[in-house]
């Protein structure tokens, strides 16, 4: 059904990449509108706490709309203009990609529909509020597991009907070709910056780079900058949920429970049963709660270039708490997975070495989930009073 649409997108992307001015026009919009470059921050207190390697953080949380998702969206916005389409659709898990897409649509004067699983609409409602304020229609997806994969299915179904005037702004490095390549291309700005910044700020390349992996767009972005540096080990961190052994998680590669499959228009490692039915996934972080993983990351894993680890919900909340207290930085629950693995491994490394954590997004969107996890009495009082005020 979408054959001609993908051909059009491939042609547009290929001609943009060949156009020598295109990358610069992308960098310009991420600078003037998005707030790039984002800094690399040295975290002295965390480094002292753990001993061993010095800990640096790439601050994608400082992007406009608070996450790396804005990069890819601004890039695809340029492609939408080249194709002359007037409407965009997008899937979203945590809501960050949805909010970023809604800002782009508002700025470029495009109609915008965001598909979001019902479970995620409930747990990430502040982002739903902002998407609607920005003029987007938010559709709550009620079938399947009502999370990111179902939002992606809903987008593919919409697009199969609307492709003549609509572009699907895929938020991650999954889905049919050319999406994995295209989204990696735009997110590679993270790695390009980070590599130069580490040489400038730390005076050396990092011995390890950590990134959380849902679909894998922030990881693909930062890893791309270091692929040709064999001394830098790349570590992807998946959602361990309630523990990989419980089955309630979203770890496809770490733990070895994923297996090859072809679904949602692409081939990769999925969490599925023997007969290819997708399993239910779980993570405290909506953006990691997904069955598949970017096919290029699965390939890098198979070739031994990227190592995969997992972090449980409980470890994530603890790492988030520590990062806030020690550094005054608030990572998103998704990003906090990368911090867990970095904290685990930093003490085992020499104090002359440096490690880099990609903070893909900021955590204030997670206020309800985090307050719940921390069981914060003051917050619960506030919510109770606000609810009572609305009820009157």
């Amino acid at each position, binding site marked *: *059904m979408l*054959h*001609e*649409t993908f051909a059009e997108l491939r042609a547009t992307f290929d001609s943009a990449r060949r156009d020598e001015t295109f990358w610069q026009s992308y960098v310009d919009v991420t600078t003037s509108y998005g707030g790039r470059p984002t800094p690399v921050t040295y975290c002295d207190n965390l480094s002292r706490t753990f001993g061993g390697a010095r800990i640096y953080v790439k601050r994608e949380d400082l992007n406009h709309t608070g996450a790396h998702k804005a990069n890819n969206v601004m890039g695809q916005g340029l492609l939408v203009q080249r194709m002359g389409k007037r409407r965009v659709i997008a899937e979203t898990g945590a809501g960050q990609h949805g909010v970023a897409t809604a800002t782009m649509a508002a700025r470029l004067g495009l109609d915008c529909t965001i598909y979001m699983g019902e479970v995620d609409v409930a747990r990430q409602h502040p982002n739903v509020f902002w998407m609607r304020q920005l003029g987007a229609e938010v559709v709550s997806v009620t*079938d*399947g597991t009502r999370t990111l*994969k179902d939002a992606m*299915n809903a987008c*593919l*179904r919409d697009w*199969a*009907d609307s*492709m*003549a005037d609509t572009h699907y702004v895929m938020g991650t490095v999954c889905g049919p070709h050319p999406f994995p390549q295209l989204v990696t291309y735009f997110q590679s700005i993270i790695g390009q910056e980070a590599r130069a910044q580490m040489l400038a700020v730390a005076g050396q390349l990092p011995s390890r780079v950590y990134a959380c992996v849902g679909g894998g767009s922030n990881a693909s972005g930062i890893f791309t900058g270091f692929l040709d540096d064999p001394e830098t080990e790349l570590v992807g961190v998946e959602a361990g949920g309630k523990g990989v052994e419980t089955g309630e998680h979203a770890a496809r590669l770490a733990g070895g429970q994923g297996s*090859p*499959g*072809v*679904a*949602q*228009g692409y081939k990769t490692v*999925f969490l*599925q049963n*023997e*007969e*290819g*039915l*997708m399993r239910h996934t779980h993570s405290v972080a909506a953006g990691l709660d997904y069955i598949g993983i970017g096919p290029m990351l699965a390939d890098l894993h198979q070739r031994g270039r990227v190592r995969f680890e997992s972090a449980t919900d409980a470890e994530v909340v603890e790492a988030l708490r520590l990062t806030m207290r020690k550094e005054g930085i608030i990572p998103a629950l998704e990003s906090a997975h990368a911090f867990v693995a970095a904290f685990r491994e930093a003490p085992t490394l020499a104090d002359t070495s440096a490690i880099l954590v990609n903070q893909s997004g900021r955590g204030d969107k997670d206020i309800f989930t985090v307050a719940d996890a921390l069981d914060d009495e003051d917050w619960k009082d506030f919510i109770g009073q606000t609810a009572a005020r609305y009820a009157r």
Partner: protein
Amino acid sequence: MSLEGVLRRGLERKPILLMTHLVVGYPSLEDNWAMLEAMNQAGVDLVELQLPFSEPIADGPRFVKANHDAIQAGVSWSTYFSFASRAARIGFPVVFMGYYNSVFRMGAEAFCSRLAEAGLSGFIIPDLPPEEAVDLNTLARDCGLDPILTMTPTNSPERLAQIGRQASGFLYCTARTGVTGRQTDLSQGVAEFLRRCREATPLPLGLGFGIRTAKDVRVAREHSADIAIVGTAGTQAWEELGVEGYRSFLKGLVDA
């Protein structure tokens, strides 16, 4: 006799054939069997049996629910194939419909031999592009199975010609873009689309997506479709009208 041969013989007797559909295990296997008996009595010409999948991206809401409910009820490959082999003994040709991950997990050889053993005539895999299907289709033809390919209104003439060259059995032509289960305005462009399909292949042309009523079947016939394909509307009729209503729904389509 080949699937195409069976269809051609049918087309000697009547101007348009009817293909109906069910999702195996939805609402239940007992209901499915009663639906098949009703199809047989009404004179349905061929039937597609859908293997439930968790991510049915070409399907609309009613079939998405049917897929998920059937999975919930525990329908597995073995459930599917034992039901399909019973269905294939009724008399009309039966074709597999399902998503590629099921085929991929089964393995192409096992898939083809299980279909052939069950007595099925071919398969429809809506999420498998023809360029990815070359090996599977070769294996299938060795087992006497027809890969049934899809033509859509957005396909370019070159694409239609390419699909036409690889097809066998018949073509599944979608009357509009989008997913299953929604109304289609058959007055808009369908005749022209079917003309383009006809130029690309001499095989029988099935028209689906939004064929819901006897009137739709007549319009399909006027536009020279060889097979009217009724999917979602059949499941809806079963759910809303019960067995008697379903029988008269089918009879209405066959007599259209």
